[in-house]
């Protein structure tokens, strides 16, 4: 089976003036469809950088990254954007939204860029909002929603395009325990039922314990016995 994510000796360096910072050093990682991988690590360890690379928001300086079997190094910027739109769903920490659009429109945005018809995009957005229990507030603007509701809208947006890879960057850190549990459950459910790979950065033991694998990043290096293989459930 083709792995969703295949990283081979990937490195990423940042140059800040005369200083070169090794954000990621020779990271290798393979993630299968339907697998939930939790990544932990101290601040500045490279967790977000790794997520950026996997999400095609950034490019590696060295190494090889294959997303769903395709080497992304040779892809143009527009090709990366199209892959991101079709294969990846993001759930960011602060649940950023387009403030001028309603919740439904925010959820439908990835489909708009995919060229899906307006009626179908609306129907699929409604379906995902219903799944996360927010159909009733579909016409509300982000400013009218609570933090927990926003994160669930973000989750609906991440899932609306049926992605192969869901990348979640501390999605529950700003939520209360009950809402956090709901969001995590929804994420894991999407991963299990749709067969999407889920990569979640989290510091919550409750969440990481549910993962198939728990990886730790320290100073840009990936720690963990199961970095390249699927752990037993």
């Amino acid at each position, binding site marked *: 089976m083709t792995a969703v994510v295949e990283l081979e000796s990937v490195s990423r360096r940042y140059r800040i003036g005369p200083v070169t910072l090794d954000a990621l050093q020779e990271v290798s990682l393979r993630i299968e469809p339907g697998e939930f991988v939790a990544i932990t690590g101290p601040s500045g360890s490279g967790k*977000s950088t790794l*997520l*950026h690379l996997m*999400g095609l*928001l*950034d490019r590696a300086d060295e190494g090889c990254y294959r997303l769903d079997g395709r080497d992304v190094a040779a892809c143009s*910027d*527009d090709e990366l*954007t*199209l892959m*991101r*739109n*079709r294969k990846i769903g*993001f759930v*960011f*920490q*602060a*649940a*950023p*939204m*387009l*403030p*001028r*659009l309603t919740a439904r*429109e925010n959820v*439908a*945005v*990835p489909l*708009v*860029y*995919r060229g899906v018809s*307006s009626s179908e*995009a609306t129907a699929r957005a409604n379906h995902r909002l219903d799944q996360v229990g927010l159909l009733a507030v579909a016409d509300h603007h982000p400013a009218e929603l609570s933090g927990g509701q926003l994160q669930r809208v973000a989750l609906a*947006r991440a899932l609306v395009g049926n992605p192969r890879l869901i990348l979640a*960057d501390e999605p529950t850190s700003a939520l209360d325990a009950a809402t956090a549990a709901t969001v995590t459950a929804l994420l894991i459910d999407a991963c299990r039922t749709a067969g999407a790979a889920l990569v979640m950065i989290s510091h919550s033991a409750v969440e990481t314990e549910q993962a198939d694998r728990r990886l730790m990043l320290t100073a840009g290096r990936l720690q963990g016995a199961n970095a390249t293989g699927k752990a037993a459930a």
Partner: protein
Amino acid sequence: MTPLLLNLRIAMSALRDAWRRNLLALAGLAVGIAAVVAMLGLTLIVRQEALRQFDRSGLDVLALRKTSTPSPATVRRPPQIDAAALRHLAAAVPALDLIAPLQERRGTLGFNGRTAQATVLGVTESFAELNALEAAEGRLLTDLDHAEPYVVIGRELAGNLRGGGGAPLVGRQLQVEGRVLTIVGVLAPARAIRLHTGDLNQAALVPAETFGRIVDGAEISVIYARHRYGPSPADVVAEAVAALQSQVEGLALQATSAAEWVAEMQRQLRLFTLLLGATGSIALVLGGTGIMNGLMLAVTERRNEIGLRRALGALRGDIQSQFLCEALILCGIGGAVGAPLGALVTRVIAWRAAWDYTLPLAVPLGGVALAVLVGVAAGFLPAFQAARLKPVVAMRAA
């Protein structure tokens, strides 16, 4: 919803949110567009007005004006254009088909025991023909009047003499420079050829020979002439000057042809256009720069939005068109406000100057089109900058 509609939706909302900032830039742009529309409109109107003035008398008119250049020491008496010189002029320059010598003096008129100052003109029949004069009452002067004590008065002068009453003037006596003349006619509202500087409506016209009798030191100060089409106006002017100077020793003339006058006027109009164009361009540049600055600020403020949209699948082109779209909407509004404003300014100026207001629709439409062009120019850099933002900013900003 398509990406374009999404852009429009966000653009309208974003512009509404930043209306205070955009208002200043819009005002600058609207003023610029108004200036350009007014510039084009006034240029067209002034040109039409000038040509309209020449329409009546045509471009085949010239003026030979005697100047006050001191006579050379060898000349014993001041040079004067006499009947012999005029006959020679007609014979030597066959291209001239109408010659209207004019004598002019500020004189005292007496009527009903009251006196007033007015311009008295000594004219021939050809003067009336050249200026397309018509009589509202009585008749015009003819060459048959010779030295008869007749006078024809302009419409406004007639009104002054009547003193608000409606009494007929034809047949009444008018004292001109102490001589009693009979009013034989009152002019219809008159508009002299463009080369004539006086107002015929306030003048008293007497036969040329009569003028010589009643005015001390009377002399022909200017000769208006009309030439046939064909020869160049400059050649005809040169021939006419040479013909007169060959007959009148020491005669200094300033020659002007209508064609030259129009050419000069067009040169001045070009200068005027250039000046207004520069003013309009500066206002447009300022307005466009204001809009560009506003959008650059918006790009900085909306980095998160840009990054998020890039993360969700927006291509560089989608982001670029977002800011171009906003620039075009802003400039479109600026054009939609500025173009009618420019038309209004043109109308007011035309009204104040008593010009006919005829503004082709293409002028304000051109103003709007120019605003759109400014929009493209002003939006290009912010749009380019926004499109260049790396999507990684979304994660960092989030």
